[in-house]
């Protein structure tokens, strides 16, 4: 379809405006994290690395950062195992309730985080499971599984099941077939899924609030410090770190899933 020159110009302007609207505030945070003034105000006064140095030495920020990284890694690990297994079950085996399983697995991503948080918090309290780090991991795993599962099942549906049949035909049992055939075909898809899951877990706030107890993750630390004027330069630094840890995995994931690794010959 060809569009007129004017329309094209108008669409271009609108697109640029939207992108500016989305990315300018994010850019400002990055700029302010290097701003030598103590208040975030335009124009920046000068360049400094002081806030970064201070942030590295701040034990509360350090602790929150570490908690976020480890929690995201744990949630992603759980999601990798369960999400991959579930996708293979649904894509490659026939069993009673298969369609419902698929729906039930995907549901947590659609459920409001606040509902998941509430429900988990209530349940944990009733069964005596302490709120805190492990509760956060379980809470994050509920939606991380969906990301891995969706990526893996999309790949499995594209890759012919006859590869697995061929391996079995050549004498490989199920474990060997999984290791030598299914996993290599799935690898890029589940790595992409894991990167996205990590990014999602890393900046999650709502479910975390309900399950954290007293534990602080980086987003929670930012959220609480945001109101304290003297912490604001540090918050900007923490924000930039959060941006990097979300953008990089997402970028890698899109690169991975666009390449056609393991597609049919």
């Amino acid at each position, binding site marked *: 379809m060809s569009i007129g020159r004017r329309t094209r110009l108008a669409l271009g302007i609108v697109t640029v405006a939207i992108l500016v609207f989305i990315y300018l505030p994010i850019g400002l945070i990055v700029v302010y994290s290097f701003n030598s003034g103590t208040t975030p105000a335009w124009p920046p006064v000068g360049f400094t690395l002081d806030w970064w140095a201070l942030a590295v030495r701040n034990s509360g920020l350090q602790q929150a950062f570490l908690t976020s990284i480890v929690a995201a890694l744990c949630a992603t690990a759980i999601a990798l195992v369960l999400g991959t297994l579930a996708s293979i079950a649904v894509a490659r085996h026939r069993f009673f309730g298969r369609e419902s399983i698929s729906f039930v697995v995907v549901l947590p991503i659609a459920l409001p985080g606040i509902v998941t948080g509430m429900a988990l918090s209530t349940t944990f309290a009733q069964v005596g499971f302490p709120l805190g780090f492990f509760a956060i991991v379980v809470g994050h795993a509920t939606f991380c599984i969906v990301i891995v599962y969706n990526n893996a099942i999309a790949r499995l549906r594209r890759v*012919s099941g*006859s*590869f697995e*049949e*061929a*391996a*079995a*035909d*050549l*004498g*490989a*049992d199920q474990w*060997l077939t999984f290791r*030598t*055939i299914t996993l*290599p*075909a799935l690898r890029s898809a589940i790595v992409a899924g894991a990167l996205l899951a990590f990014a999602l877990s890393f900046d999650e706030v709502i479910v975390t609030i309900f399950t954290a107890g007293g534990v602080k993750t980086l987003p929670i630390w930012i959220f609480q410090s945001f109101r304290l004027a003297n912490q604001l330069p540090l918050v900007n630094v923490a924000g930039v770190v959060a941006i990097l840890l979300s953008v990089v995995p997402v970028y890698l994931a899109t690169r991975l899933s666009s390449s056609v*690794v*393991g*597609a*049919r*010959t």
Partner: protein
Amino acid sequence: MTLSIDPREAHPPARGGSATSNGAGTPGIAVRLDGVEKRYGDVVAVAGVDLEVRDGEFFSMLGPSGSGKTTTLRMIAGFELPTRGRVVLHGRDVTDVAPFDRDVNTVFQDYALFPHMTVGDNVGYGLMVRKVPVAERAGRVAEALRMVRLDGYERRRPSQLSGGQRQRVALARALVNRPRVLLLDEPLGALDLKLREEMQIELKAIQQQVGITFIYVTHDQEEALTMSDRLAVFNAGRIVQLGTPAEVYERPGTRFVAGFVGTSNLVTGDVARSIMGRDGTFTIRPEKIRLAEPDASVGADETAAAGTIRDVVYLGPDTRYIVELDAGARLVVTQQNLATTSTEALAQQGRAVRLVWKRQHELPLVEGESDTQEEDKG
């Protein structure tokens, strides 16, 4: 002197390398199916198949799509579990045995070459699984690739090969394991005509060289007739006829077989009575009919029928004439273009002729009720 009888000595293999049986089953039988059925809910894919495939033979399962031939093959391979019946391989009941524990290998319709592995690793996969030492593996892979005329292709990727080459790799990957039975699921279906004809000859040669039992699924009647020692014609989940290519072609048992294997030239009812003076349904192969002048004389052992040429299809070496008989019915007649040019052949349209054939070429068909309703499928 002690007398020991080795069953393998008592019943030597039908051909070449493969041994007969481990003593438990009928010697010389590679695959036996006993009343094998496969249902998916209400859908009947295979409605009861009894079959014995002999050791070392090239056996084809021929039929239209949906006739149950591929499902039958997949039950022999172990990918599908029969709803009822037994699958016996060389005397061992394998009905409930997983595919990886069966001594058969499959060449898949879509080849199913592992895309993340080189050709060498693909061919060596079965040996790797069986923990054959690396040094021996390389030698056997090279040997298998030589057999399919792809020597030196070890390091290529499947994606770098043409369709015909992939087909050969799939064949090498199965043969390298020296299975006792090789299953082939329409392996030439994706190739163009010329390549397909080449591969037919090559496959048959390889089969005779290695002496392995081949079970070959195809919907192409010519392929089945050219390559097979014996073939089974499938329709609606059953075997409707089983025999050598010559038996099936020259003595089709039913309308369906007559139509599917060859062209169905049917003469039935009043027409049969008026022309041949016989009751029943008959088929006459198009190449057995002679086109003659309307006043041509007829031998004592021959039948003749007057008609008009309605259509002429020039095929190069042959011409196909569609003749409308005065008594009713249409017959297809093929004549070799030994001394006829295309112009001469095409000018025949509308001419009155006399069709002549030997009585021995009137093949009576069994008219079953299930058979008539499937006629249009062929």
